[in-house]
């Protein structure tokens, strides 16, 4: 259900961006997102919700692309990076250390917007 609210925030951000561009003169082709694996977002749900939400709006013809950013942590004992796994309690496989530092995976970003001028 939170994908609906995420979509609302996304559309508001798009509106804000478009205000600076003169919305009437552009066609948005792609909204390129970066979504981290360590977030509460299910990419396919976000795409489906967005497609339903923008029907008949100025973003109707736009497409969402999602680059998934891996969940990566850093072992605080030996400084090695690793991919935390739920099965291992997110601990580092090298030193069995708790997950202290997250390098990536918390991203919820609009990376770029591809558009054309009419």
């Amino acid at each position, binding site marked *: *259900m*939170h994908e*609906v*609210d*995420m979509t609302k*925030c*996304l559309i*508001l*951000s798009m509106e*804000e*961006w478009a205000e600076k561009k003169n919305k009437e003169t552009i066609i948005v*082709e792609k909204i390129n*997102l970066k979504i981290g694996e*360590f*977030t*509460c*977002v299910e990419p396919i749900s976000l795409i489906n919700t967005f497609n339903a939400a923008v029907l008949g709006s100025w973003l109707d013809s736009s497409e969402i692309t999602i680059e998934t950013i891996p969940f990566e942590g850093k072992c605080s004992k030996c400084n090695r990076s690793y991919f935390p796994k*739920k099965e291992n*309690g*997110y*601990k580092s496989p090298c030193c069995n250390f*708790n*997950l*202290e530092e997250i390098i990536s995976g918390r991203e*919820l*970003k*609009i*990376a*770029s*917007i*591809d*558009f*054309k*001028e*009419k």
Partner: protein
Amino acid sequence: MHLPISDKIELNILHQNSHQAEKNKVKFNNYNLLCLNIMSSPGAGKTRLLEITLEDLSTEFQSAVLEGDMTTNLDAARLEKLNIPVVPITTGRACHLDANMVSGGLKLLEKKINPHILDILLVENVGNLVCPAEFEIGEHFKVALLSITEGEDKPLKYPIMFREADLILITKVDLLPHLNFDINELKSNISSTNPKADVIEISSITKSGFDLWQKWISKKIMKFKK
């Protein structure tokens, strides 16, 4: 037709919410008002925790509550009996509070009372272990409750919530003798997900742990008001 242009903006999807959350925080700071965001799954004991906490705090601090609920004002009605300012926020179909809802709640609170006289604002979020973790409301600290009836594995299954929390209250510990529950396993799962979080075991029946929770709050208020 022109060629496509790519505008690299690198903007947080939730930046509208984050922006409003920052505004809320500025307001809280101007009022010298510490704000806690209380989160958990439904039935973990948030409202009962608040009932006891508000009563305990009343000798030392002035409190108010923003009470998030999806469809009813039942929890708000319970807390209003304590004669403290309570503003219900009914979220409708939304499964969490967002910064705009809290801003609206704060405006209603301002109509009830001058927030300058308050020390702490407790925001009871909607019962949910997923969404509230991603939506900031302008809080100074996040408190997550986890009742032992939910199972030891919840910090691993809902890691964002427990990773984001500054304090985790393990609730309903009076039930420990009656359950096949390994509290050390739960604590280990909390530590591996969020080694920096404070953890307090608490029971609303026996009141065990409430002294530590009270101390935690008092310390945060005193530090905040310096």
